[in-house]
């Protein structure tokens, strides 16, 4: 269970933007090429298959959180040691 939980599933914010942009570009490109090719050979099924290939490629490239989407992690503040008094008062632990 620890192993499963240790698999990273999230991208950082910039990686997320890049992944979405990349997926849109791939699917649009495959759709356009499929449309042209399907029109040339007059087979709409080929258009759909090419779009499907674009979907698979986009899914492989942008759904898993590849390292290229995790290059700029957010720098969180370090956790404060327990017991330290915060200036805002006594509700320690409950308040972020």
């Amino acid at each position, binding site marked *: 269970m620890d192993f499963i939980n240790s698999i990273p*599933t999230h*991208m*950082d914010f910039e990686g*997320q933007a890049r992944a979405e942009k990349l*997926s849109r570009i791939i*699917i649009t490109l495959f759709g356009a090429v499929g449309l042209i090719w399907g029109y040339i050979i*007059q087979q709409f099924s080929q*258009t759909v298959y090419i779009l499907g290939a674009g979907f698979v490629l986009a899914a492989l490239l942008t*759904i898993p959180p590849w390292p290229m989407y995790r290059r700029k992690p957010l720098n969180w503040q370090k956790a404060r040691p327990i017991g330290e008094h915060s200036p805002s008062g006594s509700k320690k632990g409950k308040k972020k």
Partner: protein
Amino acid sequence: MHSVLQRGNAIVAYTISVLAFLTFTCFASTFFLDYRTNAHINTVKVVVKNVPDYSASRLKNDLGFLTFDLQTNLTDIFNWNVKQLFLYLTAEYETPDNKLNQVILWDKIILRGENAVLDFKNMNTKYYFWDDGNGLRANPNVTLTLTWNIIPNAGLLPFVTAYGSHSFKFPNEYTVSRM
């Protein structure tokens, strides 16, 4: 931040939107095409009988028998938005009872990729040519037309009637003998 499922959902949704656009483009690219073409129809043997139509009543009705020739080339009709054609041969005529009678005598399905060059000689009809009374004997003007219904990937299912029809008359006497 987006999870794996959210990213997958976004990709699926976008792919389906693109597919809808592509399908509409396919429809739009064929919407204005003219699917009419020539067909050559001829009748070979025409006979009319007067026999009881048990499916309607026990009265004797006119039943026409005919064989026909049909030549047409439908290859050019097929494009990326045509999956199949449903062809049918209609007989149209006027009787004292009805201003317009239409009887479908024969039909055929042509799938995409099948031979669409038709050259039939002396074909029998598939369906009975019943009149609902006695309007066939000596009928001077019965017109055969070929029509097809286009079954597309996306869009309308237009009915297209071929250029070229054939008019014939039925004989003045009933045929009594078996054929």
